[in-house]
């Protein structure tokens, strides 16, 4: 039996109107549906996060302005401000992306857009991971704000070496982790499991679908 022989039978179902009935009164009264509601909720969550990032930037800016020098706490504040700016930019990008979601786009394009919107939590985790090698920045600012001490001049030389080396090591590890955590590598089991834990099964499935589409281009 050839697939082409089925086309006519298949298309005859278009006129089989008994199988599906639509409530015409309700149809056009719908202002929003579940998918749109979910996207709208995401947009509000991103706006709130954006405001939080903006507040962090303002606070760190004030902190830098009060002691504009080359001290360890000020440099730390600059480093953390950069991360907050990246976070804020990411949030703005997400808000723009959500407002541009268009279900009439080609399937592969829309699925990628939805993946990018849904993977926000993963991106946020990546941002936090990126700041891990700079963990001393948190320590320096913490000491300065809570105890009023600039910790750096009190550190012994070998401790500075240990902290510097551990930061470099962490930088190498987090860079590897961050480059691997992408839908391109969804077939790698630890990548799949990490994404599943951070964002859930839906994103894993979506990543597999996009990967499947893209593999046909390779």
């Amino acid at each position: 039996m050839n697939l082409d022989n089925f086309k006519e039978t298949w298309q005859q179902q278009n006129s089989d109107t008994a199988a599906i009935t639509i409530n015409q009164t309700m149809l056009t009264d719908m202002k929003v549906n579940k998918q749109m509601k979910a996207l709208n909720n995401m947009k509000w969550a991103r706006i709130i996060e954006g405001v939080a990032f903006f507040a962090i930037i303002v606070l760190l800016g004030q902190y830098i302005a009060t002691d504009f020098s080359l001290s360890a706490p000020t440099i730390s504040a600059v480093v953390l401000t950069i991360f907050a700016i990246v976070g804020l930019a990411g949030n703005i990008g997400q808000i723009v992306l959500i407002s541009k979601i268009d279900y009439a786009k080609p399937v592969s394009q829309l699925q990628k857009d939805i993946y990018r919107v849904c993977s926000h939590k993963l991106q946020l985790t990546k941002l936090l991971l990126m700041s891990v090698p700079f963990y001393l920045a948190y320590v320096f600012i913490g000491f300065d704000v809570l105890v009023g001490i600039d910790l750096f001049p009190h550190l012994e030389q070998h401790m500075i070496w240990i902290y510097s080396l551990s930061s470099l090591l962490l930088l190498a590890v987090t860079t590897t982790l961050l480059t691997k955590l992408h839908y391109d590598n969804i077939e790698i089991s630890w990548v799949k499991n990490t994404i599943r834990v951070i964002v859930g099964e839906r994103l894993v499935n979506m990543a597999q679908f996009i990967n499947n589409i893209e593999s046909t281009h390779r």
Partner: protein
Amino acid sequence: MNKPKKTLFAEAMEQHKGIVFKIVNSYCQNRDERQDLAQEILTTMWLAYDNYDNEHKFSTWMYRIALNVAISYYRKDSKRIGRASEDEECLVHIADFSQQEERSEEVMLLYRFIGQLDTLNKAIMLLYLESEPYDSIAHSLGISKTNVATRISRIKETLKKQFESQDV
């Protein structure tokens, strides 16, 4: 006098509701899921209707939106499916697929076969059965025409083997 937008949309949906039926039956396992997905497809259509360009074939535009909704919707938490249709007034009613005895054996087998395909191949198969040209399928899905041809050829081969084994 021009018909109001609501009327035009309702007429278009009535005319093409077979597309919704085919997609929900190909992508969903049970009746509650099918009904919930059909509702999502129809409301997304309505929300997108303002941007519909008359120069394009309505059924192709409708297929693209319906497939996008089905593919992005289907993977949601299954726990909420069922509750949704119980709690809400029904916008759409889908007849219980398993009880449609009048549906031909061939069509039922075809649905069973489509159900076994992966998400992308399901979409290709649905568009192919509607006699959409390869470049239109490629454009709707965002893949190349060659890939569409390759995938269809593989699907045909698999289907042939499957039907031979069932002696159809």
